[in-house]
């Protein structure tokens, strides 16, 4: 469960950072630039933490999916981007894929042998 929470935090901070990236106008605006650096740092930190319990393949796919979906939704809500048929199909496929992955009951194994490298 901890892994899932870490992954969620990582996705949300990634989307925050990506939004700041857009507002930074090529790193020319100070606060959004600081926001994006801070956001990505936290995001990758929590992504790394969640990999203690979640398989890399699964965590990364859900991370990419979650980030893409939220960014697309924010684009519609914040920036008034159009909702196209293609976009809707893409969103539905991602949501379907995440549901299928989560129904495999292998989401959190709790044992990660390779993470013991120190």
């Amino acid at each position, binding site marked *: 469960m901890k892994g899932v929470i870490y992954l969620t935090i990582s996705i949300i901070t990634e989307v925050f950072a*990506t939004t700041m990236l857009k507002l930074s106008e090529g790193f020319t605006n100070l606060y959004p630039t600081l926001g994006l650096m801070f956001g990505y740092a936290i995001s*990758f*930190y929590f*992504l*790394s*933490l969640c*990999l*203690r319990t979640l*398989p*890399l*393949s*699964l965590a*990364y*796919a*859900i991370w*990419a*999916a979650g*980030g*893409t*979906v939220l*960014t*697309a939704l924010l*684009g519609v809500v914040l920036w008034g981007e159009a909702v*196209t048929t*293609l*976009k809707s*199909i*893409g*969103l*539905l*496929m*991602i*949501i*379907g*894929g*995440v*549901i*299928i*992955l989560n*129904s*495999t009951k*292998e989401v959190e194994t709790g044992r*990660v*042998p*390779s*993470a013991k*490298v*120190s």
Partner: protein
Amino acid sequence: MSAYLLLAVSIVSEVFATSMLKVANGFKNLLPTLAVIVGYGVSFYLLSISLKTIPIGIAYAIWAGVATALTALVGMIVYKEKFNRKKLTGFIFILSGVILLNVNGGH
């Protein structure tokens, strides 16, 4: 260098950095942590150069799609993560969706 070659190198170093995230163990291990920073740095730098010639939607779609697929392969081969037909179906759905959304100019 061709923009698509730059994009390919960018993707490979991104997948490398992501794979190192796992052994970085919450940035507690120094060498993997440095590898993560250098990997993502090189990746984003090369991606930004490739964007000068490749349209952003196409570049991101390829980047996100290939990176997710390669990372899954690394998980399977290096970290011995199990795969079955159901899991594969989920991956194909996510991959297709990520590519579709990014072609639209998402991330």
